[in-house]
């Protein structure tokens, strides 16, 4: 370095051979490296990571890239974050478009039954557990029940949005006679004024629609999901959700951003981005243990709720329309028993009812959960086995069948789930 290079350098006179070897070394090195365009790391095998889009036109690809950028962008106070928030970017909770980590878990409160949230004036339905420096932390108002929700996988949600209501209703109808006591129903909820009904929507006579997103399946479509995510999770206002979250303890009026903190352009790009995320790809699908596990999965009734094969209907995005997917969900809510009941709910689901979690991408969860897994709505299960054993209520028979399996079958089932 400095000392070496600026130091007095002795002059050597018989340099011919050395000179040649120096030139040789330089040329050899540069030649070696410049030939090796293969020396940069390979693309991640899509099966091992979730980073792709469905087949898109070039114009769609540009929009997707923009949405991708905005999805992973970090918000700051200057770019609208907060003042009350849970995390600073979509990608912080949906790392690699997969499940979230417990460190960005969020809390909802204030709705103990199907009659709506009673604590909207006190900041319901979501607690923003972080705030910009200097502000007073939000608190769950006395008397409000609450639940904690860890982020579900976002890959493939565009396909879930394209599943027609008729198919969801057919799943529910088929449960009526299930010998194991599986019932399940759609979560009918009031949809926001800005929501355009999905293609083939079948509203109920009271004007409520079948909702499908979120742990309680209380959110109608991805636009609503994104508007709420920006607003409740990051404190970012949009034209769809123009008011910032506030803290009733501050005793100041809610801060209303004069202009939406996410532009309509960026918002639409983010919605498009999540819509066009490719579904997770199963790994080792032909492995004998995995196929055996898949058979066990069918045998003990897991598939009654975790629907392996679902078909999408019409979508304005050609790549999403009329596709067969393997999400392992029926998009219905099921009573999971008293142990899984947080006495908080949304829409017309009971407090013990949860949407069947899509199992795709499950095997990739450790990548984004620090080498461990945090499963079920609040990450309470620390292994796939624990998650299964926490199934009660309508899934109790299935869970007890799991417990009765031989260890070989149990492990095969788990290998199958890890291949998803």
């Amino acid at each position, binding site marked *: *370095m*400095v*000392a070496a290079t600026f130091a007095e350098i002795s*002059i050597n006179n018989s*340099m011919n051979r050395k000179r040649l070897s120096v030139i040789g070394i*330089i040329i050899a090195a540069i030649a070696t490296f410049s030939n090796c365009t293969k020396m*940069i790391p390979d693309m991640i095998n899509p099966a091992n990571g979730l980073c792709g889009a469905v087949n898109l036109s070039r114009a769609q690809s540009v929009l997707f890239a923009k949405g991708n950028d905005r999805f992973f962008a970090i918000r700051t*106070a200057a770019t609208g974050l907060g003042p009350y*928030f849970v995390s600073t970017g979509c990608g912080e909770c949906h790392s690699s478009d997969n499940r979230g980590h417990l*460190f960005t878990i969020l809390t909802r409160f204030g709705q103990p039954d199907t009659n709506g949230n009673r604590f909207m004036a006190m900041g319901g339905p979501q607690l923003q557990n972080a705030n910009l420096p200097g502000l007073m932390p939000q608190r769950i108002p006395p008397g409000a029940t609450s639940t904690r929700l860890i982020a579900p996988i976002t890959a493939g949600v565009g396909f879930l949005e394209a599943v027609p209501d008729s198919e969801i209703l057919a799943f529910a109808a088929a449960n009526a006679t299930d010998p194991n006591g599986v019932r399940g129903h759609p979560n009918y909820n009031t949809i926001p004024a800005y929501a355009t009904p999905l293609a083939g929507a079948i509203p109920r006579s009271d004007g409520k629609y079948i909702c499908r997103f979120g742990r309680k399946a209380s959110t109608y479509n991805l636009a609503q999901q994104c508007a709420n995510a920006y607003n409740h999770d990051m404190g970012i206002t949009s034209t769809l959700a123009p008011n910032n979250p506030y803290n009733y303890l501050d005793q100041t009026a809610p801060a209303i951003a004069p202009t939406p903190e996410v532009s309509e352009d960026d918002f639409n790009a983010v919605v498009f981005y999540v819509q066009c995320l490719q579904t997770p790809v199963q790994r080792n699908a032909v492995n004998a243990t995995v196929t055996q596990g898949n058979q066990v999965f069918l045998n003990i009734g897991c598939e009654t709720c975790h629907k392996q094969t679902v078909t999408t209907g019409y979508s304005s995005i050609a790549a999403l329309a009329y596709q067969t997917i393997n999400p392992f969900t029926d998009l219905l809510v099921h009573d999971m028993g008293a142990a899984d009941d947080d006495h908080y709910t949304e829409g017309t689901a009971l407090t013990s009812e949860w949407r069947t979690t899509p199992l795709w991408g499950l095997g990739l969860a450790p990548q984004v959960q620090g080498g461990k897994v945090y499963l079920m709505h609040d990450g309470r299960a620390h292994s796939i086995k624990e998650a299964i054993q926490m199934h009660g209520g309508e899934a109790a028979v299935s869970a007890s069948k799991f417990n009765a399996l031989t260890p070989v079958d149990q492990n095969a089932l788990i290998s199958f789930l890890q291949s998803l």
Partner: protein
Amino acid sequence: MSMYKVLPCCLALSVFGTAQAQLDSSLLRRRSADTAKSTLTMDAAYNRPFLKLGKMPVSIGGYMESNWQYVGTSGITAGNQFQFRRFSLFVASSISSRVKFLAEIEYENDPTGDPADAHEGGQFEIEYAAVDVELHPLLNIRGGMIVNPIGAFNQNHDGPKWEFTDRPIAMTQMLPETWSNTGFGLYGKQFTGDWMFGYEFYVTGGLNDSIIDNSMGKTWLPAANANPSRFSASASGAPMYSGKISLRNSKIGELGLSYASDIYNTWQVEGTQIDDKRTARILDVDFNTVLPKLHTSIVTEWAEVLVQIPPNYTQQYGNKQFGGFIDIVQPIFKGHFLGWEHATLNLAVRGEYVDWNVGNFTSTGTRMYNDLWSVMPAISFRPTPQTVLRFNYRHQFQRDITGNAVGAALGLTEGYSLGLSTYF
């Protein structure tokens, strides 16, 4: 230098302007770095090759860095990149035998390293502009726009001095890169036999709230660099204190210990307290030596950043960071080469590590990652000590806070660069 006459620096600069057009280049006398007397890292600003203009009390110098790069992360590459990274011009003048002035103007592409600012392109910046008044060798006063004495790299970062195209990640993306501020300082040096001792103590403007509120989503001291008002106003109204002690033995090497402390947040608005005061502190150890006989040069620096984080904030912004690097440079050829009298060929390697978020998640008790390591072998050729042609290969691995290595800019990064950097 000690014989220069008093001349206001602005006059000196304007004289230079005309001189450049008229003077025969043979009147420009080259004075290479003054290595005999002042060899502590703290002297780096003046320890550069300068060009003296005839009898003018002004000397000028500068350097540039340019490179070709081909780097990819997990199969994604921007392809061949041609980058003109930096151009720096410095002007020194001796106002009297014991008063001197140095200014450095730098053009930098992507100076903050923050992707959100990248679109702004290159920026011109006064990196350094300070006057030094010597009262005693042990007591000098420096004032102006100065480079805080935080670690060795910050003080001694000129491109041509290094065998690597990229600057050490921890020293530029954990510590603020070439962190300069307006302020005042005292410094001094003492020699006895093989030993040399130096100290620096500066009081300057400092960091600001953006270090824990930025588009990187992690505690990021370089974010403060992006704040244009930092040269005229301090976010906290309190000074940043920074100091360094250097100890050198000509047979062993040089050890530097630096410490900086700053209240970084805006805790009052128009005299009313709106928040608690929170500090950011930096501890830094640097060491460099040249092994006898082998002439192997070793330069290393490691730092810890400690930041008080507000309550109910997100753990994405860590309260503790750690990182550093080690460079090992082995000259394998020195001497006459293709007509160059003092040519050197070096083999070198840099190892580096940064953890932007040391500690555990409160929610799970498991480790927060957000770290990176890299190994970078290099070959460099110096036709003269002031010019370097360097070829680097980088092998780097990065994880996000949850440990995820699959995603944009995460996982394995590999690539190579060929760079040219020279003083002029």
